[in-house]
């Protein structure tokens, strides 16, 4: 997309608003739906990857140390990872900013 969505006029839209750029959904910041954010105590983490498997958004990956962490650009804050983590690494805290 040449312009951000909020600046597109009706004349900028292609035929039937068909999207010709593959994978453009990755530009959509689903993270701004979030009202809670996960925080981590990696000292308890056993790297079992259960959080990654359960994450419905598929936004959890491994960081440089191999610990599992959500990408906050996409994380919707559902808290399923915190609920499923067998060693209570993850706590959900309110997004207050």
């Amino acid at each position, binding site marked *: 997309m040449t312009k951000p*969505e*909020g600046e*597109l*006029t*009706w*004349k*900028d*839209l*292609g*035929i*039937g*608003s*068909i*999207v*010709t750029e*593959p994978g*453009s*959904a990755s530009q*959509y910041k689903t993270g701004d739906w979030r009202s809670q954010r996960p925080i981590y105590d990696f000292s308890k983490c056993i790297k079992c990857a259960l959080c990654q498997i359960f994450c419905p958004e598929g936004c959890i990956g491994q960081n440089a140390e191999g610990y599992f962490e959500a990408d906050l650009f996409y994380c919707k804050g559902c808290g399923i990872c915190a609920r499923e983590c067998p060693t209570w690494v993850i706590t959900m805290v309110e997004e207050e900013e």
Partner: protein
Amino acid sequence: MARKLGMEVSVAIGEAAKLANVDVVAAYPITPQTHIVEHLAELVADGELDAAYIPVESEHSAMSACLGAAAVGARTFTATAGQGLELMHEVLYVASSMRLPVVMTVANRALSAPLSVWGDHSDAMAVRDIGWVQIFTENGQEVVDNVFCAFRIAEDPKVLLPVMVHLDGFHLSHVIEPILFPEQSEVDKFLPPNQYPLPLHPDKPVTMGDFGPPIIYSETKWAQEINLRAAKEVILKCWKEFGKRFGRHYSPVEYYHSEGAKVLLLTMGSFSETAMTAIDKMRGEGREVGLVKLRLWRPFPFKEIRQAVRNAEVLIVLDRALSFGGPAGPVCSEIKAALYGEDKKPKVISFVGGLGGRDITPAGFESIINRGIEIGQKGSENEFEIFGVRD
């Protein structure tokens, strides 16, 4: 050379789709449309038409399969009627919003309940706002001609919209008429191959019908509205070109003895032919009456309608559908809205009749016109009158 053949109109529509060289037909049979898709199924099964015929489990699936076919750039045809059109309803909006050039004939049928397989326009009026180009026809020849035109209009790069061709169930679908069929080569010249610009293809991926949040939805809908209105220019050009090639001429609004007529009757579909008989008789008796026929229902021909009726004193509009609890018949409401801002306009009188297959004879039209003139002079406390109901 064109061939003139006596044929059931439904079968003729199947033949027209064959001459249009359709690639995909996805359809579900429903009275009074069944013979159309039945004939196409036969043509495909007999190897006379090289097309994919998808026998689906419902009309909802029929239209969905048509979307898929049109999305890969196939020339796509289907037909339905009444309840079938209603079951398609949500998918019809998707076809126009995604700009997929599907062509569909609708053998207009009354809606349940009580169950009626017979004709009126209640199915058509329920899909008024779906964003398709919609054309009404009076006889078998007009349906066949407009199937060719429908593909040309739908697939025009400036239009790329689905087109619906309405024909009255039974009154047209099941009658045998002499119909002129053009040669294949003539159809081919009139109707170039479909070249849908953004087809689904693995080598060049596209996303159709994706998510439209509030930040963009209004823009998409306005673009759609502008597109449908602009389609009128292409429709006019297509009919002009058709007239030049085949000698039969079509216009958004057509006239019959309407010049100088103080009283005009407005009809849509096959009942116009019966109304013409009534007009002939009344003209023969020296009455200044005429007929206006609305062919192009969407995009609505505002300019042509205003032009057609401006010199009349009374305009009587016959609707073959009710808008329950509403202001008048649905067609009449739109005519009134189109004329509201005009300085010079006739009194518009609304009649509803011909529901669920009930005929209106020439004598019936005569009494509608006479009663309309009376209401024009004396007024009426009703928003509209219903014709021929036993009191």
